[in-house]
């Protein structure tokens, strides 16, 4: 199975070479073989006696990250959708995309996506799943931005990228929590140990993180906003990614993990509320759109919401209905996208206000759209699969088990009404799509191209999908036992036996369907009269505006923060660094109770020391207040000589000698340099700056003094200097212990110190000698 998953990715490497000969042969013809082979591979598994297949390939065994593939009913359903619709989409794209396009890019991205998507649905290992999940986000980003010269494409690609990657990372967090809780990386093992997860205190966190991932990917409210903008992608991409496969990855994730969480009350509440709100909002907004693909995008959002809601219900019937609707939705939505693409391709516009009366020009497309939209609307006809799944949806809303808490009880009561509300608008936009495009007045003069029927190759893919709609509609039970029941079993966790029947008698669900059709028909015919409602809800407040505001505010706020402290002033940075050191050190010392003052082992103070220190203090203060550069340097010299006097007093002759000479040399160098510089000290600082600088420096000095005193007061370990004193002569052969330490005991330090000196000298030499003249580079 590893090869089946990776075949598209591997073969995408040779696409660029094949696309070189695209003028003779459309690249898509070659690509078409790949999903077809995969489809044939997977179709073999379909059957009543299907048993889950497990295969494992090592990747990073030490981290428990391996290519573990698990093919059960749910994965099989998705794998067939991915490869089947993938093949049809490639076939469609052969006619849709001109040979002049960059076909190599297109098919590489598409195959990359196909691999990623197969990996997502087949992986049993959560981290491998996550890897493929992100690959779908990336390839989807590339596909949406395929026409990268269009501003809107880039905007849409970026938006979908930000939102889905946000969700993906959140999901990753959830996965890590899950693997920490259970100690395994396999989803199936987690399902077997569901009670470990359910009893863990981190379970709500893991669930929340994972649901964010699922909701962003599946365009659930309020993360649905990327999907309408993703319609800037070429239509085959919209049909494939944004109706049939990628957006269902989130559904897949929820379905996959629902055996673990199904009994958890909040799982029901969150998922069903998200789903049902998305259903209503998406279908309500779809009627407001004027772009064919935008209608379909919102329709996808709403249908995904419906499936999500069913997954949230958690009953066996709902799980079955959800799985069934995944299949139904993929067939009719794929065909509708392709029809929209055909209309766009043959008339030059997708604006529904300019379209109309295309039935006579494009009878085939019109017929295909008729089946697709009627199925989507759930019109009660025995050859439309959409009706069956919608009926089951209504039934499952009515059969919800009584809720355990107030919220759940309230939800159980209200969900059927919301379901009907959403379905009414589904009906409205379906017919609006159909009649707005194909019926009504002919407006041929408004169209950029003269409309005519699409070539047969382009019609082939939607035709096959519509055939699927009808076949599933006519013989639903042929798909039931062999295929859908297995998938529902994987979701519900136990075997599901459902019968799909057209006629249930006058059940409440059928009455709901009739109500939808009746009210829907009235709303469609009076659409112009009530469409003003959209100026109040949503009005100007849309989630898009919030998204745009967040993006631009993030930008401007971070810029403001950066310009606030990144002023370019080194003095400010110095103040920040010192205050940070001060704050951190001070709080650490206070927390650990580190300040100790102990006067036990202090040496007596002599008069000479006091005198020298007083001179040093006076000179240090004098440096601060000196007006002239040269004066300041000379006074600093006093400090240096004072220090070397201290070395003399404390019996460090080597240090004293070195300090004397080094001080002399550095003062001389300072004088040499500053003699040529303008008098910087004349610059007046504001009182505030001076006050801050004063506080920071006094505080820092005090802190360091306190630390020094504390360090001396807490004498924890004995010194190692006794060893040096004892062994200096016997080991090093010298009586000058300092020198023996420098050249013998710790010679490596000295070696690198003289290296530092050498580098400094060479740096100074090159700074002075290598002058780049103005204007040269």
């Amino acid at each position: 199975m590893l090869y089946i998953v990776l075949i598209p990715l591997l073969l995408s490497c040779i696409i660029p070479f094949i696309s070189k000969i695209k003028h003779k042969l459309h690249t898509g013809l070659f690509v078409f073989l790949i999903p077809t082979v995969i489809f044939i591979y997977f179709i073999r598994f379909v059957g009543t006696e299907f048993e889950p297949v497990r295969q494992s390939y090592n990747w990073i065994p030490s981290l428990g990250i391996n290519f573990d593939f698990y093919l059960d009913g749910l994965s099989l359903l998705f794998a067939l959708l991915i490869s089947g619709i993938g093949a049809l989409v490639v076939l469609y794209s052969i006619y849709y995309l001109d040979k002049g396009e960059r076909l190599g890019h297109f098919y590489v991205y598409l195959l990359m996506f196909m691999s990623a998507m197969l990996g997502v649905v087949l992986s049993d290992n959560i981290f491998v799943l996550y890897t493929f999940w992100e690959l779908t986000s990336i390839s989807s980003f590339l596909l949406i931005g395929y026409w990268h010269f269009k501003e809107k494409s880039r905007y849409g690609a970026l938006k979908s990228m930000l939102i889905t990657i946000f969700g993906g990372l959140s999901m990753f967090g959830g996965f890590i929590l899950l693997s920490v809780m259970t100690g395994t990386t396999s989803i199936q093992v987690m399902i077997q140990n569901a009670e470990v997860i359910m009893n863990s205190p981190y379970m709500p966190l893991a669930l929340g993180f994972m649901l964010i991932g699922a909701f962003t990917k599946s365009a659930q409210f309020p993360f649905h906003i990327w999907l309408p903008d993703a319609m800037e992608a070429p239509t085959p991409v919209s049909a494939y990614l944004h109706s049939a496969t990628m957006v269902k990855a989130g559904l897949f994730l929820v379905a996959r993990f629902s055996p673990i969480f199904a009994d958890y009350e909040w799982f029901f509440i969150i998922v069903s509320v998200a789903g049902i709100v998305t259903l209503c909002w998406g279908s309500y907004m779809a009627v407001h759109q004027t772009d064919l693909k935008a209608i379909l995008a919102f329709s996808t959002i709403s249908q995904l919401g419906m499936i999500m809601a069913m997954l949230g219900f958690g009953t066996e019937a709902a799980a079955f209905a959800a799985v069934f609707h995944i299949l139904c939705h993929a067939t009719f939505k794929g065909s509708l996208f392709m029809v929209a693409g055909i209309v766009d391709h043959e008339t030059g516009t997708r604006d529904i206000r300019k379209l109309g009366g295309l039935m006579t020009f494009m009878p085939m497309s019109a017929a295909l759209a008729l089946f697709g939209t009627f199925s989507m609307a759930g019109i009660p006809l025995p050859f439309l699969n959409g009706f069956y799944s919608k009926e089951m949806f209504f039934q499952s809303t009515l059969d919800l088990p009584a809720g355990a808490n107030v919220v759940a009880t309230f939800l159980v009561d209200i969900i059927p009404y919301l379901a009907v509300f959403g379905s009414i608008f589904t009906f409205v936009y379906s017919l609006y799509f159909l009649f707005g495009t194909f019926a009504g007045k002919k407006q041929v003069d408004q169209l950029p191209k003269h409309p005519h029927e699409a070539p047969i190759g382009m019609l082939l893919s939607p035709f096959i999908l519509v055939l699927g709609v009808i076949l599933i509609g006519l013989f639903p039970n042929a798909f039931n036992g062999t295929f859908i029941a297995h998938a529902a079993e994987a979701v519900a966790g136990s075997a599901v036996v459902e019968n799909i029947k057209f006629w249930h008698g006058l059940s409440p669900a059928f009455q709901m369907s009739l109500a939808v059709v009746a009210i829907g028909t009235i709303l469609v015919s009076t659409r112009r009269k009530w469409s003003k409602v959209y100026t109040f809800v949503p009005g100007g407040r849309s989630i898009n505006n919030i998204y745009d505001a967040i993006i631009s505010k993030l930008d401007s706020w971070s810029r403001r923060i950066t310009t606030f402290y990144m002023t370019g002033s080194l003095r400010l940075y110095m103040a920040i660094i010192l205050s940070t050191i001060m704050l951190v050190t001070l709080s650490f010392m206070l927390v650990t109770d580190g300040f100790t003052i102990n006067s036990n082992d202090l040496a007596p103070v002599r008069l000479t020391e006091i005198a020298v220190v007083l001179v040093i203090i006076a000179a240090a203060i004098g440096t601060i207040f000196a007006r002239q550069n040269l004066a300041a340097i000379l006074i600093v010299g006093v400090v240096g000589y004072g220090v070397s006097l201290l070395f003399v007093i404390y019996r460090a002759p080597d240090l004293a000698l070195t300090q004397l000479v080094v001080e002399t040399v550095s003062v001389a160098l300072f004088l040499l340099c500053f003699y040529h510089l303008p008098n910087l000290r004349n610059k007046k600082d504001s009182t505030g700056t001076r006050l801050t600088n004063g506080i920071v420096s006094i505080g820092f000095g005090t802190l360091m003094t306190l630390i020094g005193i504390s360090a001396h007061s807490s004498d924890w370990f004995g010194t190692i200097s006794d060893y040096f004193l004892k062994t200096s002569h016997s080991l090093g052969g010298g009586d000058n212990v300092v020198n023996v330490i420098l050249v013998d005991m710790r010679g490596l330090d000295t070696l690198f110190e003289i290296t530092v000196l050498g580098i400094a000298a060479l740096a100074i030499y090159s700074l002075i000698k290598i002058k780049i003249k103005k204007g040269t580079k």
Partner: protein
Amino acid sequence: MYKPNDLILRTTTSLIAFILLGFSIYLLLAGHNAPGGGFIGGLMTSAAIVLMYMAYGSAVLEKVLPINYRLLIPTGLLIAVGTGLASFIFGEAFLSHTYGYFHVPVFGELELATAMLFDFGVYFTVLGVTISIILSIANDH
């Protein structure tokens, strides 16, 4: 043109420079047993050279001491690293030093330590560094 008459400076320099040089070599050689060493010795030697430079100018200095001071830096570093590497020959760790007593004709019994060689490296490096810094800054126009 005003020409400074620095006869006293030059005369004293010609004396003091040698005293300084002698003292610096003393510091370098005595470092192992008395205050001093390669570092301070190198600084002291450069003090003598700087004094000569101040009294006589760079032209005279170049004639008297035709040395490229920048080359002293790698020379010193190589000596220092070389003493470290040499300990490998005897199967010892890097920078292992040893010492011994030898009888030298004129000086009699002498203690010689390999650490002294390392100190020579320090000496040359410090000398090269100081002089090249000071001269390159001073000669900059």
